[in-house]
């Protein structure tokens, strides 16, 4: 196991470099002059253009600039963005809200999804199961931005149950409504997964054995069936956290959450290459780590899985 983890960690290095390389070229390869539109309705004066070109080495070949970037990166410097701020500073300001939103959304999602999944599994094809399936499909079928806007309008503005928007770092309370909106869509798949997995386990031999031994149904479902159904659930949740850390662009926009998704979108829109590379790289690394944690969780949950 340790060997496996080490191997995976070593793989991080080429992936990390590869990602920065790809994203660097994507970000700076965007068409158009990154300095155009930096001066409002006016054209930028020559002195400004010359200075910015020099500072960000815009006149050098991309590969040379990548070299500079990596050299800085090795010293832990993510660089300075067009806005004159350190990328690391921007990331540290944006991550708390994103992480809180992700954790809250996943918590709600797991709570709702697993509960519904188990209830549906107890009577597959029953009224609850069918209703849940249809409702879930309707939720999935509606575009996310419509649901987010509707939720804000109804529960925030009209009913006043939740804060309408989130200011700066964002407390858990402020993030509750956006988290519910995110969780609502994500729990659909999760509850379906849980349902399938629990049904499978309930049909397996060891559960039947437990039943014949006279164990109570609640105990069977709660402990035996659930534990063995957790693998797909863990995989999905892992993937979800990874996705949410990349920032929920639409929900962040609607609820004015100053998170990582918005940061990346703003940087892309303003062709702020250095910020894009830094932010995306951090996200990809987060993905890798979470995937690794998921794989480790497999082994913990199911002793039959061995990586060595």
């Amino acid at each position: 196991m340790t060997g496996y983890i080490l191997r995976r960690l070593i793989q991080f290095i080429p992936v990390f470099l590869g990602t920065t390389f790809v994203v660097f070229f994507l970000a700076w390869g965007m068409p158009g002059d990154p300095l155009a539109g930096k001066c409002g309705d006016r054209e930028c004066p020559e002195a400004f253009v010359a200075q910015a070109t020099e500072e960000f080495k815009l006149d050098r070949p991309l590969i040379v600039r990548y070299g500079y970037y990596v050299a800085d990166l090795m010293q832990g410097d993510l660089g300075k963005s067009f806005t004159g701020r350190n990328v690391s500073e921007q990331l540290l300001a944006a991550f708390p809200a994103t992480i809180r939103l992700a954790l809250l959304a996943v918590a709600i999602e797991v709570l709702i999804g697993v509960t519904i999944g188990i209830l549906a599994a107890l009577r597959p094809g029953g009224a609850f199961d069918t209703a849940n399936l249809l409702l879930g499909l309707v939720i999935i079928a509606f575009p996310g931005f419509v649901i987010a806007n509707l939720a804000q309008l109804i529960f925030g503005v009209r009913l006043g149950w939740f804060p309408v928007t989130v200011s700066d770092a964002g407390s858990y309370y402020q993030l509750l409504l956006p988290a519910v909106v995110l969780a609502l869509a994500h729990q659909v798949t999760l509850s379906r997964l849980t349902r399938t997995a629990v049904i499978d386990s309930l049909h397996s031999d060891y559960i039947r054995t437990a039943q014949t031994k006279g164990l109570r149904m609640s105990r069977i479902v709660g402990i035996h069936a659930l534990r063995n159904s957790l693998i797909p659930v863990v995989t999905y949740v892992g993937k979800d956290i990874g996705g949410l850390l990349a920032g929920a662009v639409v929900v962040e926009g609607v609820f004015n959450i100053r998170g990582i998704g918005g940061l990346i979108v703003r940087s892309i829109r303003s062709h702020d290459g250095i910020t894009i590379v830094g932010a995306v790289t951090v996200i990809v690394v987060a993905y890798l780590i979470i995937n690794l944690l998921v794989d480790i969780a497999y082994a913990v949950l199911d002793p039959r899985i061995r990586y060595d």
Partner: protein
Amino acid sequence: MTETKTTIAMPGGLPGEFVENTRAGRSLTGEAATLLLRSPMVWVALAVLLMLVVMAVAPSLFTSLDPRQCQLLNARKPPSYGHWFGFDIQGCDVFARTIYGARASLVVALLATIGSTFIGGAVGLLAGFYGGVTDSVVSRITDVVLGLPTLLGAIVILATLGSGDGSSIIRLALVLSVLGWATESRLMRASVLQTKQAEYVRAARIAGAGDLWIAVRHILPNSVTPLLVMATLSLGGYVGAEATLSYLGLGLQAPIISWGTAISDAQPYLASAPHMLLFPSLLLTVTVLTLVLFGEAVRRAFDPRSR
């Protein structure tokens, strides 16, 4: 960008689920088809799909109005006789635009599904079949692709392709496939890994068959079912993804009419003129719902335990 990605990935569920549930042999396909047609839900879904296809092919059968004939003075008028869905912000007939929008929305989704299934299938086959270093490299690339923001990818790809005339449907489909194949590839890889262990593959190898022959002749047909099931499911996801990209300002361009552009154009008027949003959303929802229900039925038909 999570939204787009999750919408795309969501209906598909998990690789593991399919692999476990579909130890598919070819005899199963015929059996599954028979089983499929026995369900009334499938017939309803097929009827709706047929209607959508007709709508996409010959929209003029459904409405005599011209969706591009817009009078600003009619803007935002609520539904009335002769204009069942009212007018949109530009004073175009919402009903006509919703009908005519079906084509672009469905074609984008179809092409994106074919594209991502093809790329994902090929990459997954490669990784699963060769294993080892190839697998590691491919898996990590998959991780990177999953971590890339769709918006960045979309802007760069759209820009690289240039804004040639009339091809914005193809460009959008390409963006969605290039950014969406990773999930498919993981699924295919898992499926191939399982098929590889089968007796007949070993037998073929002992008999001296080459790599390519084994991969294409034996492994591909026996591991592709979960991928195809997934494709049915992701069709619906891509219909929704087109809408999200439009919302982010990267959607289809005029003169193409689509549900996505209609929905994102109407979204700011959610509170004041909801009818402009309601009807295209409704059709989009019905379409996605039908596609997902159909996909779900296909999945069940292939699931040996549900019989």
